């Protein structure tokens, strides 16, 4: 009985896995390989069709790029802004997520829509609107301005995830804490926040990476003084010339820490989820 089920299920599963792998490799892995190859192209030989791989490889682009102070500065700027944006989003998403996830709000749908509005609006519309406003407020060309504008677009994701996590907290746990003498602040500190920590982690990761790769708003609000890695990337890819080789190096500089971060976060997240698992209820 069991065996025949496996026999029947197996081809279907294999097909699914194969399909998934194909999509993943087309969308993710092949561009990644192409990116790595571009960063290693020998500038003297170049890489032109119909060659599938560059005729010769070298570290010349890397040497040239790492010699420019800009890339180090952009790296530092990116990794300064991302944690601040993440912390700010977390701090703002906690109360909002609680209200949306746990309170019986009459206007809940409307509030949710408003919260999501920055995602629904095209980035460029938001950028031009906020950009002119930020100039008047004196926030343009400042790190604070970039942090704020990134928070505006990334907060909705954070709120969604945190609200969903709040929704999943069993009411009995909150009741038990109150029953045992927890007034609102200790209730939040000792029970609610630890229980939504997996959501905060997941949302934080999303926000961190979102901040690292955010371009439109950072460019419009921050230029020319605040230059993050994506803005630097544009300098090599935008405008009239596209210097693929340098752009590829910047991409790798942006990508490698992000991937490492993903792995570390995934590990911790798993532990967190286990610890917060609501047990045998």
């Amino acid at each position: 009985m069991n065996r025949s089920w496996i026999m029947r299920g197996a081809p279907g599963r294999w097909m699914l896995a194969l399909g998934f792998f194909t999509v993943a490799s087309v969308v993710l892995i092949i561009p990644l390989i192409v990116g790595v190859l571009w960063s290693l192209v020998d500038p003297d030989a170049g890489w032109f069709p119909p060659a599938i791989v560059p005729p010769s490889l070298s570290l010349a682009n890397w040497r040239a790029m790492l010699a420019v102070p800009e890339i180090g500065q952009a790296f530092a700027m990116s990794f300064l802004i991302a944690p601040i944006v993440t912390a700010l989003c977390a701090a703002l998403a906690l109360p909002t997520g609680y209200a949306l996830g746990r309170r019986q709000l009459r206007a809940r749908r409307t509030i949710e829509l408003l919260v999501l509005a920055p995602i629904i609006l095209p980035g460029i519309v938001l950028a031009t609107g906020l950009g002119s406003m930020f100039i008047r407020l004196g926030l343009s060309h400042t790190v604070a301005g970039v942090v704020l504008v990134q928070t505006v677009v990334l907060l909705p994701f954070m709120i969604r995830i945190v609200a969903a996590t709040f929704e999943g907290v069993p009411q009995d746990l909150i009741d038990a804490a109150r029953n045992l003498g927890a007034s609102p602040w200790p209730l939040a500190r000792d029970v609610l926040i630890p229980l939504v920590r997996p959501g905060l982690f997941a949302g934080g990761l999303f926000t961190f990476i979102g901040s690292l790769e955010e371009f439109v708003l950072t460019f419009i609000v921050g230029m020319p003084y605040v230059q993050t890695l994506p803005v630097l990337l544009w300098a090599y890819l935008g405008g009239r010339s596209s210097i693929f080789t340098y752009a590829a190096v910047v991409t790798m500089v942006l990508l490698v820490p992000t991937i490492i971060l993903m792995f570390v976060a995934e590990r911790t997240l798993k532990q967190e989820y286990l610890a917060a698992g609501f047990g045998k209820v």
Partner: protein
Amino acid sequence: MARLELRDITKRFGRVAAADRVSVEVADGEFLTLLGPSGCGKTTTLRIIAGLVDPDEGEVLLDGVAVQHLPAHRRQTAMVFQSYALFPHMTVSENIGFGLRMRALSADLIRQRVGEALALVELEGLSDRYPRQLSGGQQQRVAVARAIVTRPKVLLFDEPLSNLDAKLRERLRLELRALQQRLGVTTVYVTHDQAEALALSDRVAVMFGGKVVEIGTPRQVYRTPRARVTAEFLGVTNFLDGQVAAVADGHCIVQTPLGMVEADAGLGVRMGEVVTLSFRPEDVRIGRYEGTAVTGRVLHASYLGSVTDYVVESGGITLRVHEAGGAARAPGEEITITLPATAAIVRGG
């Protein structure tokens, strides 16, 4: 330790009254059970005592002081939840110490009291485990320890045994009762399990449709129920309509289609009144004894182990009869049964 009193507690959810003028007094150290089917308002009543639900009307008094306006965290009640509601991110000892930390006791005192509580529920070795690493029975004990460690004025239980298997449930039932008696803490216990209610309680309050229909000792509510719903809910029963033929000394004789049956007349029955009698299957004896004996025919027999459950038809009326012992009577067999020496008069539809 405290005396708890509910006065005319009413709570409506929309149009439905979950609790409808509930008035109950629980004496110091008493174990009171709220018994009823799901949706009868027993859990709502319990949550009102804990302050987790605000009543629309009525008062909750602890030692004569109205507490219904106090928020839950200042009620000094401790509740054991059906789901146990253990904090998944805390170890056993952190869970148990939670209430003490909220009361800002010193770390030393917390450690000492948590240790005592762990010993009381026999979980000494498990203090560093997480709830998900415990069995259902162990989780239940942690929940009990977490509740009693704060030395609450009133201990509240919301169907704490319903997620356990039958054997364990019975054992923990005995332990709970022993623990409550040792601590002498005023306790309100909610269950839909009549055996649990009878075994644990000093008194049982039977609830239906948001109302307390009857309060009494387990013996009273089982043997001499006043309400038809009580008799029906607490196990199997026989109803028999009849007319009061004589009243004297708090007793009366009721003329039923099967003959005369004596009943308790505590409710002030009048001569000639048509009443419903209730008596338990184990009160009907097979064979001819003193009292009213009639002949009947066995319709069904099911062997339950400790007793055999018979459905007996006599004069167009079917009765449930329980007989202990090994005698096996086959369906269709003619038998003589003796009606109980005394029955209860029940009221209500």
